[in-house]
């Protein structure tokens, strides 16, 4: 990552939204932040950091025309050269003005529950909070892999969504941000590296994002998704083994 804004404010939340060809869904995504800010009982400011990942389309005009109803919500838009989702998220981290960060895909919706987690957040804690996703399917789409169905008798479990985390910018900078070599698995990789670094990751069973499957999600490329997943797992195993070897070597 490149050097970051050193004048962040500790009492607010920056919502980083990478945009690449999301003109059909972006309005809904932006409005979800506005609606959540209105529903939430907090009073901290919310910065929507839109990062255009190198594609010029109508989403630019859509963002320029977007006027949030909640006085808590401010908008900042940034254009960068195309570099992929991790690159765009890292650019958003660099430009965010608040110390507490969260991420939102430009085809998903943020819930007010996520803002409630901010109110419960301890300013001094380096803890990373990850919530649960709720799934909606539209356009008669199917749910893509790698969500392999298990037995119908299996106990129901929460579906943690790594990118929906609440995390301090300082933490993201210290860990080097998202690995930009991933096409879609940068979020899984990041959580693994956070865990390896000893940073506490708390999974909360609250729905913090409504995730849409609409037939055009990047995760429909099963080969890429699976490849990134295994890449993250292999990277994690390598680092764990190196740590173990280092411990045994001392």
């Amino acid at each position: 990552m490149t050097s970051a804004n050193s004048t962040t404010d500790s009492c607010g939340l920056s919502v980083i939204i990478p945009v690449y060809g999301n003109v059909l869904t972006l309005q809904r995504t932006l409005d979800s932040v506005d609606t959540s800010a209105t529903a939430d009982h907090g009073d901290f400011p919310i910065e929507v950091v839109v990062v255009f990942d190198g594609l010029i389309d109508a989403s630019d005009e859509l963002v320029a025309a977007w006027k949030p109803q909640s006085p808590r919500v401010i908008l900042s838009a940034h254009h960068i050269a195309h570099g992929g989702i991790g690159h765009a998220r890292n650019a958003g981290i660099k430009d965010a003005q608040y110390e507490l960060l969260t991420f939102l895909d430009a085809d998903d919706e943020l819930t007010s529950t996520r803002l409630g987690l901010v109110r419960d957040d301890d300013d001094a804690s380096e803890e990373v909070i990850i919530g649960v996703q709720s799934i909606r399917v539209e356009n008669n789409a199917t749910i893509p892999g790698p969500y392999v169905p298990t037995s119908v008798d299996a106990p129901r479990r929460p579906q943690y969504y790594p990118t929906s985390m609440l995390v301090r910018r300082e933490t993201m900078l210290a860990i080097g941000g998202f690995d930009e070599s991933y096409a879609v698995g940068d979020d899984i990789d990041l959580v693994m590296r956070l865990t390896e670094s000893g940073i506490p990751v708390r999974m909360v069973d609250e729905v913090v994002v409504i995730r849409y499957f609409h037939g055009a999600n990047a995760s429909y490329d099963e080969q890429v998704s699976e490849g990134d997943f295994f890449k993250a797992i292999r990277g994690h195993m390598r680092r764990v083994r190196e740590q173990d070897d280092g411990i045994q070597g001392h």
Partner: protein
Amino acid sequence: MAYKVTDTHISHDTQGNETVVIDFSGGTYYSLVGTASTMWVLAASGATDAVIVETLTSRYDGDAAVIADQTTSFLADLIARGLLVASDSTFDAAVTARVTRTSWSEPKLEAFNDLNDLILMDPIHDVDDAGWPHPKGDVD
């Protein structure tokens, strides 16, 4: 008996001499290196016990009885863990040609359980708008 990968909840990937297997139902992931990886590739290709033992004893330097015993035990462990199941599928014999000759070492499987929360996958097809823990049709 022929084998195949349990296709309901297991993903696997082999690169070089290591196979990584992910069990999405339990959240455990595994590393199989060397002879263990070779055995996995053969079993995943639909090989029978007999073919696997024959291939390994002919391609590895070692005591044939030891290779056969350790192979049988290891395959049983993979079955017990739910990673492989019995199959009547046909075997792609071309896979045996890719087994390179080397010294035999006891196949070992390394299991990791540190990422359960991230790996565990439940059927999300029937989660209602309210998300977990509200199943579809839950009126509460």
